[in-house]
């Protein structure tokens, strides 16, 4: 039987990697991929906690399903935004998307 902490450490690692992707990649699509990694890390945690501490009720399941839903919505809107931005600015390099620069 795998201990719960293994899953938690795994999820932490995945989360950190995903965060690195979000913060360090230049391409917006890569940033989106980083976000997906982070969401998946969360899902692992949710299900691990469900499995080890709350087996009776399906809270973890339900929450994970909602996370997946949100991820799907986020990916759809995100990709649409990239395409729109690409059409406008001819780039999806997040460093160049600095219209908010002061």
């Amino acid at each position, binding site marked *: 039987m795998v201990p719960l902490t293994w899953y938690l450490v795994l999820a932490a690692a995945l989360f950190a990697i995903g965060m690195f992707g979000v*913060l360090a990649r230049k391409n917006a699509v890569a940033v989106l991929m980083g976000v997906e990694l982070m969401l998946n890390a969360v899902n692992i945690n949710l299900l691990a906690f469900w499995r080890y501490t709350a087996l009776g009720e399906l809270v973890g399941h339900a929450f994970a399903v909602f996370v997946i839903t949100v991820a799907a919505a986020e990916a759809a809107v995100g990709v649409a935004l990239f395409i729109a931005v690409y059409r406008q600015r001819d780039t999806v390099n997040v460093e160049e998307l600095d219209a908010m620069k002061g």
Partner: protein
Amino acid sequence: MHESSIPFIYNLTILVPVLPFLAFALIVLWANRNKKLSAGLAIGSIALSWLIGWAIAFTAFGAHEIAEHPFRMARAWLPASRAWQAFGFMVDPLSALMLLMVPFVCFLIFVYSYGYMGIGKPISAHDQRGWPATPGHVDPLASRFFAYIALFATGMIGLVLADNLIMLLIFWEIMGLCSYLLIGFWFARTYDDPKKITPKEAGLKAFLTTRIGDTLMLAGILLLFAQIGSLSFNDIFRPETLEHLATATTHLPLVGPVPWATLIAILIFCGAIGKSAQFPLHVWLPDAMEGPTPVSALIHAATMVSAGVYLIIRTFPLMAAVEHGPALQFIAFIGAFTALFSATIAVAQNDIKKVLAYSTVSQLGFMFAALGIGAYIAATFHLLTHSFFKALLFLGSGSVIHGMEHGHHEGEQETSRRGDKETRKQGDKEVSGGGHHLSTHHLSTDLPAFDPQDMRNMGGLFRRMPRTAWTFIIGGMALAGFPIVTAGFWSKDEILADAWVHGHTVIFVTLAVAALLTAFYTARQIVMTFFGAPRTPAAEHASEHDSIFTWMTIPLMALSVFAIGFGWVGIPTTFPVLGQWSSNPFHHLMGSLAEALHIEAAELPFAATPLLTSVVVALGGLLLGWLTYRRVAQIGQRIGDPTWSPLQMPDPLARPLGRVYTVLQNKYYFDEFYGRVFIKGVQRLANWLFHFDDAWVIDPIVDGVGRLWRRLSEWGHVFDERIVDGIVNGIGAVTAAVGSALRFIQTGRAQNYLLVGLAAASVLLGVFLVLPK
């Protein structure tokens, strides 16, 4: 009442006010192009309301426990401090009785309006919007009229069903709005006589006058809410609440300690004074006659004015919370005074509707007086009987006026047909100018405009308009209190008996005199209108054969049945001979409510004096009236005499009464008095303030300030350039420097911001770990 035992029909209560409202909404939003459809909608909705209303009422009459446990349907909707006001309706014996009367009379009035507005007639090309239509044509705004009266019916029905004061106030104000709109329905109408009030002004006057009462009433309601925290009748009429209100006092300046109940009761009664046109706020009601006749019937019979009486009947436990307190005395005084006072005015009026208007004021005074002396049931009874016969009288007068207008029209055509220039000229002079619809060649010069409402222009209409005449006479008899047969007799008699038995002699005498006068002016009106010879060509040609009169006279007949028969439900069991067949169901029903509300309302023992008094004053007044005006009625039309007009004819009372008659004819100069004192006063104050402002105080100050400021600003200019500019520029420079220094933080790159967020989160997490728990 147990949940399951509520008859299903009560659940339809909500429909009774909502149906006319739906009709209103539909007409306004959708059907207004089609006059027939609009009228049909209004009549259909009110007919349904009437049927449902009667079903509810008769169910309620059958179930006596409804007095103890009224049917209520309420939904919380308005949060007010800690309590929710309920959007609620209630059926108890009083509401049920009103439901018996209100939707039915409304229905008849709607049907009457169908004829009155000439629905189905062609549209006249000359008719202007906001003028009465040419006879034989449809009113151009008929749809609007039906929308208004439907909303009006909503207001009244909602009012009688309301189960709390907030709801009551809402419907009360809906009616106020509708009365404004309806009185001013012919908003464009003007008269040659500049002194004569126009419909627009009359509507405004009615609205503003009642507003005085409404404001005081609102104050009373708010005080009540502040005291007991609820406005539901159910809560207000709990004995302990009333006890609390009667004992807790407030200190008024000049007056001293006053129980809350008294203060609130008087304030609420002020609302009723305004709405029911009691002295001193009675001035709006006669002028409200400028509205179309069905409106007069709606306002003066079934609805608005009786709303005031209804309000006092409804809140009677509150009024009577202090036994024989000043509130009741005040009500009794106002009521009795108004009854007598306006009866005297009515005697000297020549306008057929004005007589009825003052008569209404007087009869409402009767009811208030009855309430003031504690004759709770008698007042309710009189309210209902009066509604029937006064509606009948108003609608009858409308029919007469229409007949006169038709006759005028006919007469005119006949005159022009004669072709004789000379005669035509005379004819012109005789009849011209009155009709607003008159065309260019009818220009009046030396004679006042023909007024189809003036009783002096009538006479002999009995033969021309028999249906109207018969029903009008029945209504008049009921108003005069013709003994035994009519409804008015029974209700009026009961009030008098109550006053007598309980020893209110002053009230008794006042009301008796008022009743005598009532019979007198009723006789005067009937004689002048229907008997004798026609005094004008219009009266000679008047007829009721047009198709619209079918619509108009059927309601009259229906109402005349009630004007007689409705009295029979309230024949006292102690009455000689007749009493043994009577079970007095009315007293029984209202008695159960009175019992539930702890109002003392035992059936009176029989007393001969008030009975004799009412018989004598009724018959005596009628006889006197007939004797006095018999001769006037005989004066016929003098054809061919261009200088003669029935308006020059002196009233038989004018000489014996002398100056008093003039005073009466001018309504005790109340309008003038108000005009001088209040309106002129306010105008003068405003004028003075204007001058004060313009010439003496404000303008010099303003000018001085202006000069001073100029000087200051010249100096300030220098200051500005040297110092302020320097500061501003300095601040600007500093800001710009700081801004450019800080600019690099704002990279516009989301990832930088996220990094800051991450760093912050990491630091927080670290602190959380390091710090001891």
